[in-house]
């Protein structure tokens, strides 16, 4: 099957400005976009740069904007696309290091801001910390995040304001706020209960559309909005 990849290229050492380039390749229809990129890199242009590691939707390193939508290149097949002219860009709003590789520093800084670790005021138990099944269900979805950044980079609120925490960081806040074993819910709510936190979410649902783990981020954010509103009453 003939496929054309239209890729946004930028090498800061050589190029003054980013430019787009077409690559025509012949691949089986069961090829993933990641395989197509590999083919371009291995057979046509060894300079093409992109991140990938597990190539099975686990590590979250190959999020990119494919045909105008963020997704993991290792999770979509060529045959999923009707038109065989496929555009590939780095995920939006993050500084480009080279080609499809973006600098994720700000993404991870925001992640650290919400204290993404267990804070317990209790004496550590001898064995594991127990949790009821019902309590665990509350965080069933939230624990699945692989930190690919597709959601935060798809958010118009974040494109327009780089201080916005973004859905991924706030999902992590939810993951601990609603964890029965954690004791720092209020501390974390204070962090997200700001104009650059929860309240900059305008329920656009771009993040929900792109999450490769099918996490409904907006729902999780709304649960924290509710909690914050309840605190004020």
């Amino acid at each position, binding site marked *: 099957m003939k496929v054309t990849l239209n890729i946004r290229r930028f090498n800061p050492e050589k190029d003054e400005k980013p430019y787009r380039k077409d690559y025509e390749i012949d691949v089986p229809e069961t090829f993933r976009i990641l395989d197509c990129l590999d083919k371009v890199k291995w057979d046509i242009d060894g300079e093409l740069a992109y991140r990938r590691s597990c190539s099975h939707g686990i590590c979250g390193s190959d999020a990119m904007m494919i045909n105008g939508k963020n997704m993991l290149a290792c999770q979509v097949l060529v045959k999923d696309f009707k038109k065989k002219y496929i555009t590939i860009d780095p995920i939006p709003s993050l500084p480009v290091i080279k080609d499809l590789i973006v600098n994720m520093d700000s993404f991870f800084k925001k992640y650290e801001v919400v204290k993404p670790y267990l804070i317990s005021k209790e004496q550590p138990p001898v064995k594991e910390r127990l949790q009821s099944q019902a309590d665990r269900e509350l965080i069933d979805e939230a624990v699945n995040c692989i930190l690919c950044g597709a959601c935060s980079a798809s958010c118009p609120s974040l*494109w327009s304001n780089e201080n916005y925490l973004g859905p991924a960081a706030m999902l992590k806040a939810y993951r601990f706020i609603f964890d029965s074993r954690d004791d720092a819910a209020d501390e974390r709510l204070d962090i997200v209960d700001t104009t650059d936190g929860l309240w900059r979410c305008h329920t656009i*649902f771009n993040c929900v559309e792109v999450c490769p783990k099918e996490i*409904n981020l907006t729902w999780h954010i709304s649960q924290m909005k*509710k909690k914050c509103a309840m605190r004020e009453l």
Partner: protein
Amino acid sequence: MSLQNSTSKFNRWLDVMFRYRKHTGSWAWILHRFTGIGLTLYILVHIIALTGLLKGEAAFNEEMKLFSSPVFLFAEWFLGILVMFHAINGIRIVLVDLGNGARYHKQILVFVYILTVILVAGMGYLIFAHV
């Protein structure tokens, strides 16, 4: 340099805003934004129009006659579309933010569109049935 930086940043923002794939939720957001901006501008127009009151009854009535011309009736109807969509989608947003609506936002949006069409049609009837 910094100016160049910010223009290239702005260009990328614009590029992404236009090229990023739209879907149910983002269309609702875009419509909500534009109807919101429209209504804000309308308030200005509304206040300016009402200044006729300061010039006495006759002047005001004269002005009001202008507003009952067909063109303005249409404009009013159009305004109704903005108000209806903005108000009803506002309820959807409240359901999403403070209820469980985030799980059903697409279904709720269908209701929002249907309700908007019905109310706007009804409003059109009320406006034009008496012309």
